[in-house]
C-alpha cells in the first residue's frame, strides 16, 4: 500500500515538474541549462532573492544555535573510523538510488557499476558501513533524481533556498521528496524513529563539512550569493556529468 502511495506521489511530482519545465521553456529567461544570453546568472535565476535570503538566514540561525555545536561535539567525541562508518552507511543508500538514476538516464554501464558497488558494500561492507567497493576501483558516481530530471530536459527553474535542506532550485526541490524517500530515515516506521535517523544523518554530514564551511566564511565576499552561484554552477555541471556545454559570454549588462 505504501509503495502505491509512493508511486502516486512520484507521478504527481513528475506531472508538476513537467508543468514547471514547460512554464520555464515558455519563460526561457529562467532556464539555467540553456540560457539564450547570460546576464549576471545568479541574480537572473534568483527572482525570489528576498525570500531566499530570509530562509538562508533562518538556516544559519538554526546552524549556529543547534546543528553546528552538536556536529562539533560529534566530531570531538567519536573516532574518525566511526564517523566514516556512519557516513558510509547513509551514502550506501544513496549509491543504490544513484544506480537507479543512472539507469533512468540511460547510462547502463555506470548504472551497473553503481549497482554492483551497492551490492558489494551492502554485503561484504557490512550494510554499507565499510566502503569495500572503492578499493576495487568501483568509485562513487552520484546521481540524484534532480539530475535525472535535468538530464531529461527539465530546466532548473529559479533558485530556491529550503529550510534545513538549504540551496536548491524548483526542479531539485520537486525531486527532493523522492530522493529523501530512498534514505534510511524514510524506510523505518514511526515519526520519532524517522526523525532520529534523519537527525543523525544531518549531524554526521554537517560534521564532515565543518572545515568546508569555515573555508566558505573566509573566501566568500557575500556568503549568500557565493553559495547560490556555486550551487547553480555545480548542479548544472552535474547534470552534464562534469562537462557542460559552454555558456555564451555574458551579454553587456544594462547600466545601473
Amino acid at each position, binding site marked *: 500500500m505504501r509503495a502505491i502511495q509512493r508511486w502516486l506521489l512520484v507521478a504527481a511530482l513528475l506531472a508538476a515538474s513537467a508543468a514547471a519545465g514547460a512554464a520555464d521553456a515558455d519563460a526561457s529567461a529562467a532556464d539555467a541549462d540553456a540560457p539564450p544570453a547570460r546576464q549576471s*546568472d545568479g*541574480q537572473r535565476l534568483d527572482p525570489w532573492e528576498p525570500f531566499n535570503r530570509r530562509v538562508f538566514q533562518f538556516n544559519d540561525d538554526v546552524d549556529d544555535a543547534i546543528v553546528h555545536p552538536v556536529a562539533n561535539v560529534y566530531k570531538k567525541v567519536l573516532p574518525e573510523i566511526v564517523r566514516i562508518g556512519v557516513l558510509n552507511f547513509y551514502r550506501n543508500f544513496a549509491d543504490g538510488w544513484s544506480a537507479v538514476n543512472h539507469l533512468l538516464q540511460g547510462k547502463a554501464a555506470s548504472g551497473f557499476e553503481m549497482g554492483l558497488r551497492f551490492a558489494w558494500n551492502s554485503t561484504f561492507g557490512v550494510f554499507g558501513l565499510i566502503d569495500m567497493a572503492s578499493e576495487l576501483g568501483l568509485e562513487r558516481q552520484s546521481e540524484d533524481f534532480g539530475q535525472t530530471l535535468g538530464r531529461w530536459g527539465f530546466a532548473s527553474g529559479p533558485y530556491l533556498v529550503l529550510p534545513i535542506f538549504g540551496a536548491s532550485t524548483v526542479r531539485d526541490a520537486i525531486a527532493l521528496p523522492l530522493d529523501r524517500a530512498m534514505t534510511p530515515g524514510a524506510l523505518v516506521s514511526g515519526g520519532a524513529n524517522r526523525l532520529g535517523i534523519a537527525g543523525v544523518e544531518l549531524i554526521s554530514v554537517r560534521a564532515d563539512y565543518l572545515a568546508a564551511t569555515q573555508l566558505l566564511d*573566509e573566501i566568500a565576499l557575500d556568503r549568500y*550569493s557565493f553559495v547560490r*552561484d556555486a550551487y547553480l*554552477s*555545480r548542479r548544472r555541471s552535474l547534470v552534464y556529468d562534469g562537462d557542460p556545454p559552454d555558456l555564451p559570454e*555574458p551579454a553587456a549588462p544594462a547600466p545601473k
Partner: protein
Amino acid sequence: MLKKLLTLWTLLAALCAAGPALAQTAPDELVRQISNDVIDSVKADKAIQAGDVGRIIALVDTKVMPSVNFQRMTSSAVGRYWKTASPEQQARLQQEFKILLVRTYAGALTQVKEQTVQLKPMRGSPTDTEVVVRTEIKGKGDPIQLDYRLEKAGDAWKIYDVNVLGVWLVEQYRNSFAQEIGSNGIDGLIAKLAERNSKAAAAKS
C-alpha cells in the same frame, strides 16, 4: 680548468636542449607536471601539511604562478569594470585576489596525503590556442574534479581559470565582484578583499 669548462659547456648544451622542449610542452603535460610537482612538494613538507600559509604562498609562487596568467584571471573576474580601474587599482586587485585564491588553495593542499592526479582525455585539435585540461584528484574518498583552462601565449601555455567540483573560479567570483563594485566601487572591492584576507590571516595565527 678544462674540467670546469667541460661541465659548463655540458650545462649550456643541456639548457639549450631543454629550453625549447619546455616551451613546447603540451597543455595537458604541463598540468600533469605542475600537479605532480605540487603534490610531491606538499608530501615532503611538514610545514605545508600543517597549514603554514607563508610556505604555501612560496610554493605557489615558484611552482604554479609561472604558468598562470593571473592578470587575465583577475581582469576576467572583475569583468567590464577592469578597464575603468587605474593601473594602481588593477595591481591591488591582482594582489588581493591572489591571496584570496591561494588561501582557498592552501586549505585544499593541507589535505593532500595519498592523492594522485589523473588526466582525462583531451579534446580539440593541435592548432587550438585555448584548451580545457580535465583532471581528477584520486585519493581517499570520492575523486575530486579539477579542470583547467589554458591559453597559448607565444610558445608557452598559461592557466587562466580553474574548475573545482564543477565550479569555475573566475565565473564564481565575477558575480560577487560585480555586486561589490556595484554598491561600493572598485576601491570598495579592494577594501573588502583586503579585509577578508587580513581577517583570515588573523584567525590562522
